[in-house]
């Protein structure tokens, strides 16, 4: 199996990460923001896998499992919060949750 060069892998991961970041920054709907964060986490996971593959170690993939698990936990908490937010604020617009400031 021909290995993909580590640079290529990192460029893809970096692009993915950047996409996710842009998503977080430009989207106002909180669900999309969570989605974009997932993309960023997975980009990082990809980077681990690439790096692990480069060094021919399992560590990268192990890390990816951790990332997956934690992402799932985060999303679980995140979505429940979104639910509550919808109850209280009647909106999913992230710009509108700013009762506290200053």
């Amino acid at each position: 199996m021909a290995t993909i060069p580590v640079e290529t892998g990192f460029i893809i991961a970096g692009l993915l990460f950047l996409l996710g970041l842009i998503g977080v920054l430009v989207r106002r709907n909180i669900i999309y923001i969570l989605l974009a964060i997932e993309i960023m986490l997975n980009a990082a996971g990809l980077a681990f896998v690439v790096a692990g593959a480069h060094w021919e170690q399992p560590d990268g993939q192990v890390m990816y499992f951790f990332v997956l698990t934690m992402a799932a936990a985060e999303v679980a908490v995140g979505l429940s919060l979104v639910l509550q937010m919808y109850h209280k604020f009647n909106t999913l617009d992230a710009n509108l949750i700013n009762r506290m400031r200053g």
Partner: protein
Amino acid sequence: MTSADVLHLLPLIVLAGGTIIGMLGIAVYRDHILTLVITLGTLIGAFVTLRFPLHSPNEYITPLVQFDGYAIFFLGLLFLTALAVAVMSYGYMRGRAVVREELYILLLIAMLGCSVLVSSTHFASFFLGLEVLSVSLYALAAYLRSQPTDIEAGLKYLIPAATSSSFLLFGMAMVYAHTGTMELSGLAQFATGTWHKSDLLALAGMGMILIGIGFKLALVPFHFWAADVYEGAPAPVTALIATASKGAVFALLLRYFSAMGIQVREPFFVIFTVVAIASMFLGNYLALFQSNLKRLLAYSSIAHMGYLLVAFLAGGRLAVTAVMFYLLAYFITTLGAFGVLTALSNKDTDFSHLAGYRGLVFHHPLLGTVLAVMMFSLAGIPLTAGFLAKFYVLFAGVRSALWLLVLVLIVNSVVGLFYYLRVIVAIYQPVPLTPEESRAGQPYRPAPSASLIGGVLLVVLTVGLIWLGVYPGPVIRWIEALLGL
């Protein structure tokens, strides 16, 4: 795995086991006091079992964690902190018509995360600990979900934190990609060598790791979440965020970067210096006229993390001692302050508006005095632990000739004094109001919800604070002994 190894890891095992028992306990019989007892028991158990690793500190069991003297110090500190938070939570949750028991479970889980963090020697445990801590904190921050501010706090914590975690992860991946190791010892080997142009990937990765850490510590420019989360989260949770979460992450920072010794090398020295100065200034200036005590403490914590960075930047053994002592003092002080705040909160709102503290010392002498002492400690006035802590930091800075930072620290101490004094002034403002004030509305007179145990806690904290301030010799010697100095 031998039985010795099990004993060595016993604190973590006790903590995890206690969490499970707590969960099961709730499933079987939901009771506030029972859960509290389980939690306290678990924490005490974990604390007591620290003696096993203490007597064989350098045993190497797994590449992920290491229970050396340094870790043990922080573990003990964290367990005691959690104990205090649990006690505070009891008084805080007692009168509330919500599910109360899960709070303790989440607290224990957060502790588990912290424990892994402070003993971490591997990126995996680093990440896991951080995330375990973070996720439970999201939930804790939004625990009183009937209140919009709590939800808001949870979200405002979650989204930036998750973003910064992605940065952290990506940075780890970069470092890993370049060095091929995720173990601290390996990383240290890399970092202490000479750096070449080609090492840029790893160095940039380390920079990104810093973002994750900086976020947790609420260093400038990652500090924005702090005030909102402090304000929205329930008071005991805020106390936890302010102490355990920050302390654990700082301990980790110190372990990683001291081992690698790169904070004293370009470019990280510059980055840390800039961040430290910015944190001190912004934190203090943001707090200056803040009228909400929780937000005020949030901003103050930003500044305090900046102070700590001065010691951190000084490097060497003294820096480690300084940071440990500082965190010890800071934990006690913050817990005391939030303890008072918690005790004064009722089921409608957290008692955080400064105006409400007017004349506190006259109707609640104990609470007022404790809060005043805590403020003096934060301000670094003698007789309190905060003074010696600041002394240590300044000394570390002076010894390493970090004159710019020392000067900034001094200037900021004066600025900081102003808002701590505002709290103290409020506490000691005599009760009769001036006409303008009575027009603005009678301030809320708190009916403290402090339990007896909460009161005892406050007294213990205050006594500890003053003891540390007046006769810190034994504690310093003990810290040095732990570090094997």
